[in-house]
């Protein structure tokens, strides 16, 4: 079992009756310390989540004083029986896969390159790789609307300067590439997060392992494969979990970049969060938005649980 999983495994509670006074004191202290967070979570997360689940079974417009009629699963049928929804599911899954692997792999490789090689000056590279994270995701996306401008944007200007004067990709206007353009912003931004976490993890690895490997004649690739990767496995699980969740809900990128309404052109960048936003905020379909929210919740919990189960199953045995 991995060290992380071992740490995360819940320990059996000591019986209150049989516990020592010191243990009871510790328990009380723990409860006091955890209570504020739990109360806030209950108010701002658990209760709204339960309310959303309840709302998804009613027909409510979002502004009427009463909740409307109980319609059971009809709201789910209405919300899912259309092209935008199927497109949103497809795109959300694609985002999840990209989020899971691409920033994680780039971030890990970049961190290893900076920390495990003779690349100099290290502080400059660390700064350069982390710079994207200084911006919020939404700001980064807003910046990239300029970068992607077909006539005046930096990318097409470079393509033009390289002599490809007839090539003028419509990064955000071509339904075939718009989603990848949006993913590019996501990867640019989130790689910075992955990079800094992996950098911290790599710096914790016992350097004598590297020295021993070098004495044994291991190449840098072999050092990366057999020392770095196994050593950061637990951190990688954490990073990949976060990236998976963020990747399944990249609203902050899609909102500023794509349209009309959201999710265009022609639903090519539609994701579940944009559909939810449109139903709830641009129209009066609160119940359908709630139903889509429930679907998104199930999707995220399901996929993340499956991922963690897979990581657990494939963890090297001690």
């Amino acid at each position, binding site marked *: 079992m991995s060290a992380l999983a071992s740490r995360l495994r819940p320990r059996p509670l000591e019986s209150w009756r049989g516990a020592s006074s010191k243990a009871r004191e510790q328990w009380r202290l723990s409860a006091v310390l955890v209570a504020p967070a739990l109360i806030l979570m209950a108010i701002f997360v658990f209760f709204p989540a339960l309310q959303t689940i309840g709302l998804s079974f009613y027909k409510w417009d979002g502004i009427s004083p009463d909740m409307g009629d109980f319609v059971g699963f009809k709201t789910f049928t209405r919300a899912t029986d259309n092209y935008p929804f199927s497109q949103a599911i497809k795109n959300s899954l694609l985002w999840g896969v990209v989020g899971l692997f691409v920033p994680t792999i780039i971030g890990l490789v970049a961190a290893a390159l900076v920390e495990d090689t003779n690349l100099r000056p290290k502080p400059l590279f660390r700064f350069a790789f982390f710079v994207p994270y200084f911006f919020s995701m939404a700001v980064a996306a807003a910046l990239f609307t300029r970068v992607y401008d077909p006539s005046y944007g930096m990318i097409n200007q470079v393509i033009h300067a390289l002599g490809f004067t007839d090539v003028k990709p419509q990064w955000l*206007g*071509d339904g075939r590439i718009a989603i990848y353009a949006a993913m590019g912003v996501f990867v640019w931004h989130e790689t910075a997060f992955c990079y800094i976490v992996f950098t911290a993890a790599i710096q914790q690895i016992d350097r004598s392992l590297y020295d021993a490997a070098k004495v044994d004649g291991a190449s840098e690739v072999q050092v990366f494969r057999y020392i770095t990767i196994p050593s950061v496995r637990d951190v990688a699980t954490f990073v990949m979990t976060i990236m998976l969740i963020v990747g399944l809900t990249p609203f902050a990128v899609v909102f500023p970049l794509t*349209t*009309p309404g959201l999710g265009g052109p*022609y*639903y090519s960048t539609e994701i579940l969060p944009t559909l939810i936003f449109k139903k709830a*905020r641009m129209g009066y379909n609160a119940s359908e938005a709630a139903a889509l929210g429930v679907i998104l919740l199930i999707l995220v919990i399901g996929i993340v649980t499956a991922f963690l189960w897979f990581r657990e199953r494939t963890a090297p045995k001690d």
Partner: protein
Amino acid sequence: MNSNSNGISRRELLKFMGVGAVGTALGSNLAFAQAVPESGTFRFQIESGPGTDFVAVVDAFIAEHPEITVEFSQVEAAVVGVDWQRIAMEAGAVDLISNENPKFLKLDPVLKAGLIQPLDGYRDLYEWDEWVLAAALRRSSRGGQLWTLPLYYEICGASYRKSVLESFDVGEPQSWEEFIAMLEKFKAAGLIPLTNGHRGFSQIQMIHYQFWASIGGLSGPGSITDVIFGDGKFTDAPSVEAAQAILDIYNAGLLDPDVLSITQDDGNERFISGAAALNVTGTWFYSEMQRQFDDDWDMLTMPGPGGGPIWCTGETEAMVIPAAAQDPDAAALFLDFCVKGTGAKILLERGNLLATKAFGELAIPQIQRLPIITGDESSLLIFGWLPQNSQDAYQQGLGGILAGSITPAQWAQQVQDAWERDIEDGQIPEDRSDLL
């Protein structure tokens, strides 16, 4: 179905009118009298954008009515969404709030929810029928009562520089052929003939309105009016032909090739910089053009295949008084200030097309020639009449046509399906004839 003439059931109507009355009673300390206030506090919220006009209007109101205390704030409604409206209205946090337009997307939901109060008492008190255009009052009424007061009209078209048209020796096109010939001249000179931004808010739809109005006429089968208020369908020939016409000019290189990638702001920049000859926009852009070009600008409406130029107009900046307003009398006084007082004058001087007859002679020439002022008939500006499902299908689909994802006929069918679904969901009254 037990319904009144606009399709809302009598029970529902009575329910929300009752909620409105109770809210008014509670909110205004049981003061039912609708009178010119001698003092009071007026809390006014408007979404940002045209709100900049209202800063000057509010300042003038304060100067003229020192007996009224004003609390004014601008909110970005597009970001905070409908929740903001609901919470602000329900909590009695505002006395007057902008509800964008008196159409199915905006007015009917807040009306059904019982969040607003009727304005008929103020309509009589301030004699708004003499000042506000009849069509604006009619569109703002449901069940025989006035629920909102639109202050502006908006008209969409293609803005141009007069000097540019003169240099090409062309005038405003009166037919499709003339329009195409004009665009081709611009193209030959290396200009973007017609710029437009689809990213953001899909101004392509404005081209579609204009072509559709031109092909389908002002009323009768095939017209926009027939679809929105009658039995017409989005799949009717003029609607599909209009969509096909957009595709044709796009394929011919007469519409900005970047249309799907750029926003309306980008289009405006291209027009202002002189890179584009025509820019699809509307009266909301007038004050900016006046600022940029002094008098060297105007706007035309684009004829579609087989038709002449027909303007598309719509009511906007519609103000509602929440049922729970604390001081509705002060709010109504401000409304009247914008209908026939100095507020109207300020709004007009800034290039807005008002829904009132006041100070019409002060309007800039570009406004004087528009149908609301001239009295000529015009077609509908569709935005706002489509609830979210239909609007999404409409906007996304027009981009899909240009991107080659769907055909105009497929687009029309998708919009029609979404429209019927919105009717089924109760977001559009089944009988809409009294709004004509």
